[in-house]
């Protein structure tokens, strides 16, 4: 389905608070060096500070991810690592696609150059070659509304004009991913609306945006996912359903939409051809007697139709249930209860089904991912055939103590046993 454009894995960034690691002058550096040589333990006294610690998250194409958190929670550090301004201490980031980062509007503008000259300079810094800037020049100027002052050095610009021109350049540079720090809070409200419209259009054409904002209204309006950082740790990752949001690009499977119109990326069935080597997947589906969104108190059946063309030793057939934030909740293979070794599976047509018992999942949105593969060798299908279903709780079961919808991802009906010895009332 949608591809991962940014894959952050175990990211950490450490700063040394003490001057021992960050000498300002040769004197301090020499003194520290001398101390290190003469001291017995050889360790300079320094305090470590992790601005980010063990951050892992994946951003899919078409996502608009908002990073939230208090000042000093590590949002900007994360943006700076994604923009390659600072290097991570640990972990990796893999980015697929051209990135434009706007950590500060007009970084790289030179006050003595005219608006026209700065458009080209800033375009180059943002990775846009001159012919491309030339082609978009009129668009950029139009968007900024500073055409009268194009040949005036920007040092004579009002701050609003400066910001408008700077944002216009960045907004018109070709990219697949935009990384934006608190910069949309600039310009007058008319220009802000223009910027928001531009970002929405950008997202609609299948691009990805990561932004930091303290403006909750903006976060509500734009983001499809929210990552919350607290003291450098990813404390919450939430997927939101935005009214009228574009369906993620590449999501071309047949979608049987749920009752609510705003859950347009839900999908209970898939038909097509997926698979590799000797296996082909033709259809996957989720069924519930009451239809979708399914009730938590009804069983949900998940199944697939496929075909095997050559005998496979150690064939795996499994279903993975993932939460809205991508966390794997359940991995369930057809032969989990059978003793090893797995027998060889012979060619033929397959129709396998699995039932999730009632009262297992809590209210929410879940991804059903199919894992057909050869044990320890490779997976034979892709995520193209995965499903996304919604579960609601109309009966109110398990709601005697109401709590927030994402509070727990599973609500199994496990038996309780009470062994009380009530005291007689006084």
């Amino acid at each position, binding site marked *: 389905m949608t591809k991962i454009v940014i894959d952050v894995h175990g990211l950490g960034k450490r700063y040394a608070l003490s001057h021992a690691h960050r000498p300002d002058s040769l004197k301090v550096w020499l003194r520290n060096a001398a101390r290190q040589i003469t001291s017995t333990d050889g360790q300079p006294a320094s305090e470590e500070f992790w601005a980010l610690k063990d951050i892992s998250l994946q951003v899919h194409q078409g996502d608009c991810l908002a990073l939230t958190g208090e000042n000093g929670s590590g949002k900007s550090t994360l943006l700076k690592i994604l923009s*390659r301004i600072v290097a991570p201490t640990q972990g990796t980031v893999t980015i697929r696609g051209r990135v434009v*980062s706007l950590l500060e509007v007009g970084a790289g503008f030179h006050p003595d150059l005219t608006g026209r000259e700065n458009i080209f300079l800033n375009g180059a810094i943002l990775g846009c070659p001159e012919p491309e800037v030339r082609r978009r020049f009129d668009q950029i100027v139009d968007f900024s509304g500073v055409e009268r002052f194009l040949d005036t050095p920007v040092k004579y610009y009002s701050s609003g004009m400066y910001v408008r021109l700077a944002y216009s350049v960045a907004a018109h540079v070709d990219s697949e991913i935009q990384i934006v720090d608190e910069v949309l809070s600039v310009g007058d409200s008319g220009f802000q609306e223009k910027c928001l419209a531009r970002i929405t259009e950008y997202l609609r054409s299948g691009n990805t945006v990561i932004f930091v904002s303290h403006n909750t209204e903006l976060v509500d309006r734009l983001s499809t996912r929210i990552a919350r950082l607290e003291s450098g740790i990813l404390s919450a990752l939430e997927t939101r359903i935005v009214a009228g949001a574009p369906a993620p690009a590449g999501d071309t499977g047949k979608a049987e939409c749920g009752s609510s119109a705003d859950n347009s990326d839900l999908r209970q069935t898939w038909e097509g051809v997926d698979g590799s080597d000797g296996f082909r997947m033709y259809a996957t589906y989720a069924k519930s007697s009451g239809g979708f969104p399914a009730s938590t108190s009804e069983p949900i059946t998940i199944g697939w139709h496929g075909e095997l063309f050559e005998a496979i030793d150690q064939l795996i057939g499994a279903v993975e249930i993932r939460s809205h934030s991508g966390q794997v909740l359940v991995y369930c293979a057809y032969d989990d209860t059978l003793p090893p070794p797995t027998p060889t599976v012979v060619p033929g047509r397959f129709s396998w089904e699995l039932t999730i018992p009632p009262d297992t999942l809590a209210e929410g949105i879940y991804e059903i991912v199919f894992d057909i593969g050869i044990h320890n060798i490779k997976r034979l299908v892709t995520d193209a055939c995965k499903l996304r279903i919604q579960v609601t709780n109309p009966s109110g079961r398990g709601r005697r103590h109401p709590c927030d919808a994402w509070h727990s991802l599973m609500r199994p009906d496990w038996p309780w046993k009470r062994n009380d010895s009530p005291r007689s009332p006084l």
Partner: protein
Amino acid sequence: MQNVSHSPEAPVLLIDGSIPTFQNYFREVWEFRAVAAMLIRRDLIIRFRQTYFGLAWLLFKPLMLTATLTFAFGFLAGFEKSREVPYPLIILCGVIPWYFFSNAVPEGMNSLLAHLHIIQKTYFPRAIITVAAVAVNAIEFLIAWLLFALGCLWYGYLPGWQIVAFPLFCVQLVVLCGGIGMWLAVANVQFRDVGNLVPFLLTIGFFLTPVGYSASQIPENWQLPYALNPLVGIVEGIRWSLLHGTDGFPAVAVLLSLVLTLVTTLTGVRHFLATEPRLVDLA
């Protein structure tokens, strides 16, 4: 940091905080060459905007230095005037390279610090900034040779076949300035002391470089330590190439200077690449 693959539609970038290889780094510098061009163009525009004499400044400053040195060393110190080459031309061959060196090195040194606001907000290979700072001065350096050409016209003097080596010495000098610039640019971000030290060293360097005099005036047993200044080989090489090789080819100085240039530049680039990922943290 490295580019893992290079398909036009979806470049894949891996950020892991590692030091880039020479090859990957230079590929990226090439991708961002437009930035270098823009920075050079910007600096040239800035330098001459709002100035009345504009480009004339380029020639005026070395000319004044030449006149002063001709006066100081030619008349006061009473150095030999009986040579077949006009004295001001000998001086010009030292002044123009020195003038370039003494501008390019501090500007290369300050380049990263002066662009810190850009470095902290946007990414492109940082070496571009230092290279551009040196390149702007290199362009002025090349233009400044017009002064020498005018001097030749004035004195009716024509350089000999040795002039073929002239561009090589110029390239070597530019590379040397780049190498020193890379060393100092990084050092200056880390230790601001460097910014105080270098102008002082340049003042000393002026007297240890054959600008107002010729290296042949240095006593025999001091020639070798004197040639440890890589500028000695370059300036004397330029004099040899433009002035008919009157003093003979300064082989030892040129060779030594070549080795020093290569060592300085290679280690400079290496150190720059190794420090670049931590640059913003160091500042």
